[in-house]
Structure formats: C-alpha cells, structure tokens
C-alpha cells in the first residue's frame, strides 16, 4: 500500500467539511477524531494547528493507513462506546461524515460530549433541494455527490436534515456553538436547509 500523500493540506482537498473543522480547532488543542479513516485530518491538525490527539477507526485497511500516516489510531468500534477515554479529556471530539452511518446515533453524540468539552460533526444534509426533488418528484431515493449510494448498498442508516439535527440538539440539552452549511465546497447563507448539501456543527453540553 502506498501511504496517502504526505502533505496534510493536499490530503484535505475535496473534503471542505474537514477544512471547516480544521479552521475551527484552536491551536494546541487536544482532539479525538471518531472514524478517522486514513488519519489525514488528524495529521493536518497536527501540522497546521499543533493539535495532538487520537483517532478511532474500526476498519482494518483504514487503521493500517492511519498507522502509515503516523497517526495515533485506536482500533475500536464506536458503536460499543468509547473505552479508554475519560470524561472531559479532550478539547474536541470530531465525527466527520459518519453520523448518518452509525446505528446508535443518539448514544454516540452523547458519548462525544462525555469525552469532549466540545464536539464537531459533519453530515450530508438530507434536506437539500436535490434530495427532496428526487424523492418528491422522481419518487426515488436521492443519489448525489454527498449521498453517492443506491438505496440497497448505502451505509447510511440515519440520514437527517439540518433542521432535524437542530431539533435533536434542542431536545438533548445541547447548545450549538457554530454552524456552517456548504454546497460544492462553498458556504450557503440563505435557505441553508434547502440549498446546503453538507452541514458542519460545533456544539457543547448546555450547563445544568
């Protein structure tokens, strides 16, 4: 296997959600990246923000790629909880483009806020007009750049819209600190739940 290109910045090309995360993370922060894939986000955060941390990944090939990229990767299944990480032990817990593919979505978000002081998630917005269009008028499950699967082979089991996620937060004592909605790599300001295909949220547990 050839390790992915060494330069973290190049490694994030084509992943605007990761670039957004990188922009939000404070310098020298401690970071836990759930579903870290080949580890390039962590590597990028280390190189550009001086951030240190760990990635969690379940798939063998991605663990191997993360090791090759010199990342602290812990092979574990998110669905079984975050063993090894104490309460409030990280500045940020990240989950990029994975939320929609996990089974225990609610438990994982709460686990992120147990371990991290703040959490950052990115997910494809099912409320994007194109998705709505395909369901409403085409009568078919949406397929797009951010949702590139057919209904029968998709790993996505918990798709949601921006409005769904915000309602979830309101109902779970979660305060949203920052929101960025993107389409085609560009921010969307007006009618984000209709015009945005990718959502990025930073949030924390509301004080009791």
């Amino acid at each position: 296997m050839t390790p992915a290109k060494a330069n973290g910045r190049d490694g994030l090309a084509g992943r605007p959600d990761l670039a957004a995360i990188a922009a939000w993370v404070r310098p020298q922060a401690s970071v836990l990246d759930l579903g870290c894939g080949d580890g390039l986000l962590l590597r990028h955060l280390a190189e550009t923000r001086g951030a240190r941390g760990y990635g969690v990944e379940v798939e063998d090939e991605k663990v191997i790629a993360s090791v090759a990229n010199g990342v602290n990767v812990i092979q574990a299944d998110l669905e079984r909880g975050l063993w090894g990480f104490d309460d409030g032990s990280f500045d940020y817990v990240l989950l990029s483009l994975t939320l929609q593919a996990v089974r225990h979505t609610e438990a994982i978000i709460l686990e992120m806020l147990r371990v991290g002081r703040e959490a950052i998630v990115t997910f494809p917005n099912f409320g994007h007009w194109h998705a709505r269009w395909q369901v409403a008028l085409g009568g078919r499950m949406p397929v797009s750049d951010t949702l590139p699967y057919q209904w029968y082979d998709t790993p996505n089991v918990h798709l949601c819209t921006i409005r769904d996620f915000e309602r979830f937060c309101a109902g779970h004592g979660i305060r949203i600190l920052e929101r960025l909605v993107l389409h085609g790599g560009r921010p969307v300001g007006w009618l984000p739940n209709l015009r945005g295909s990718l959502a990025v949220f930073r949030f924390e547990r509301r004080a009791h």
Partner: protein
Amino acid sequence: MSPNTRPQPSSVGPVVARRLRFDAPLRCRSGGTLAAYDLVYETYGRPNAARSNAVLVCHALNASHHVAGYYADDPHNAGWWDNMIGPGKPVDTDRFFVIGVNNPGSCFGSTGPMSTDPATGKPYGSTFPLMTCEDWVEVQARLADRLGIRRFAAVMGGSLGAMQALQWTISYPERIANAIVVAATPKLTAQNIAFNEVARRAIVTDPDFHGGDFYLHGVKPKRGLRLARMIGHITYLSDDAMMEKFGRVLRSGSIGYHFDVDFEVESYLRHQSDKFAEYFDANTYLLITRALDYFDPAHAHGGDLSAALAGASARFLVVSFTSDWRFSPARSREIVKALIDNRRDVAYAEIDAPHGHDAFLLDDARYHAVVRAYFGNVARAVGADGSGVAVELPGEPLARRAASDALAGGFAA
C-alpha cells in the same frame, strides 16, 4: 515504496549465534545474584553509523535468541519470528539492525539453571536466582552497552516478550524510541496464574524433579514437563482453532473404548509435549512462568497502570488478537488506556484472527501490514535508510547450531 519496486521478502539467510561473557554481577529483584553470566545473541542486518537503527526482539516462554534466518548446518531451523523479520519483511533487515537475545534463566545457551555454577562446580539447579522482566531488561541494556547502542529504535515482543518491551519503557525510557507490544497484558489474571501453577505442580511433583537438582541424578522430570506443555499449549490456541485443526477426528477411525490416545487432539498434544520435554529445561519452565506471574508494573503504584507508565516516553504500537483468551484484547486495552491517560503516542490494532494467543507468531496479512506501516515511520524517524555498515561483533561465534530441535516447533508463547 510501491509494491512493484519492493524486493520480495526473503530470509536473512544463514546466521551465527554468539556467546558473550558478562563479569559484572547481576543483582536480581528476587534478592539472588548472578556473579557472572553468558548471553547468547544473534543479529540481522547492519547498524548504521550512528547505531540509531537497532531493534531488540524479546522472546517469550520457550523461544530464544534465534529470531530469524537459519543455521548453515541446519537449514530447516528457521528463527521463531522469521515471517516478521528479514529483508523486505515488516521489520526490514535491509534498514534495521535487529538483535535477538536469549534471556538468562532460559535454556538455549545463556546462563541458566542447567549451567555450571563456578562457585560449586555443579549445575545451579535449585540455587539459580528467580528472575523477573526487570532483570531481563537490565541484562538486555548491558548487551546494548556492549554493542554500542545508546537508544533502541524499537524494542518489540509478543506475550512475555511484549512485557519486556513494556518494561523497557519504564526502566530505560531514554533508551527506547518505540515499543511494539503484541498479544500482551499489563499483568496476569488469577486464571493465568492458575494455569501456570498447574504446570509448575506437574513439574515439581514429578519424582524425577529432585527439588530442582535432577541434573545430579542424571534424569529429567519429563512427565511433569509434558503435562506443563500440554496445559500451556491449550491456552495458546483458541477453541475454534483447535476444532478447526482436529475436530473430533479419531486416530483409528472408530472409538476404541480405552484411555489411551483415541482423538487426534490427544495425539497432537502428546507429540508436541514429548518433543518439548526433550529439549526444554524444567527449572527454566518454573522460572519463566514465575516471571510471568510476577510481572505487574502497576503494583508499585497502588495498581495504577497510568501512574506506572507516566515516565514512559516511547511511542507505542499495541496489537492484540480477538480470539486470544489467554491475554485477551481487554488486557491490551488497559495498556492503551494507560498510555492515552498519559497522552503518549500509541497506535492500537485489534486483529480479528482466529488462532488464539499464538496468532502473534503467525503470518496474518493485516497484522503484518500494521507492523510494516509502523516500522516505515520508525525508519524515517531514526534514519534507518539502508546505510548500514559492517561491524565487528563482540563475543565468541557458536559454530554448532544451538538447540536446533528446540526451535523448530513453532509455538513460542
């Protein structure tokens, strides 16, 4: 390096073991002392000018310094981790200078219970000091001194060997850049100790044991050793792996209604244990299982493993195997957790392999890919770039093959 330019992995070829004398006394944690001792070791690859590319491989219960390659007069006797170490292999001897050493107390050439005590002119036997992982690591550091190695690029091992790698990060944090800790545990469970105790009882209750001084009687407690090996061997394999390998197959094809060998698995265990009892030393078995029992770096810190590892500065690769019920993944996770608590660099792979504890010796593609990827970064970090130079190694070359039958068996946990 892309796959088409990487040379095919191959054997390091014929190797020569060396015996090196140490005259400074070793004061063991048990209170005993070895006034002087020999270590037998082998090396593969070449050190670079800075000697920054050295990798120490620590052995487990019944393995030795013969880690890779083969002996010219015994070409079928491959080293016990030959699939891991060699040119183009996960630990690439074209870049790293790899060292295997037989720990004192073992029975493959280094000073052990069957060696002659110069003070009495008789075998040490029951008077050989109990040794611990701390003692072995101290001895290995002295070997490093003699080889001119200030800091190891990596210390690696599986099972008991992994405990030594872990101990290195505690005993000599400034002398180890990376620890590769495979199929490990930070301490034995009560069940682990119980299995070891059954094995030891089998040996010491053998009428040929003579309190450990059987050498003087010209006998060996082979019955005890066989039983010890049988019980140990069962713990190295998974239920599934044994079922896969033997099932309920009968030797003669039908049930014999007797208490002799009827099932294949019985035949296998007897054969393996017979071989083992021929080459292995009973006192060594007692000593090494005790070293396993006593290993518990957290003990001195009120049971707090994170505190025990607070002084460690190495980077870690920890690997466990899902079907290992002897040292299960949960034990490796304790190590990983303690390292995360200390914000140490650690990568952890939990390999879904069916073979049980012995998986660490086997050629699993994912396992080897992880180790290969990790050592690729180690090589870049320490300047292991293939610029090794030929050096004169200290110690007397051993012309004869060392305990060759011993090492052909395979299972080295």
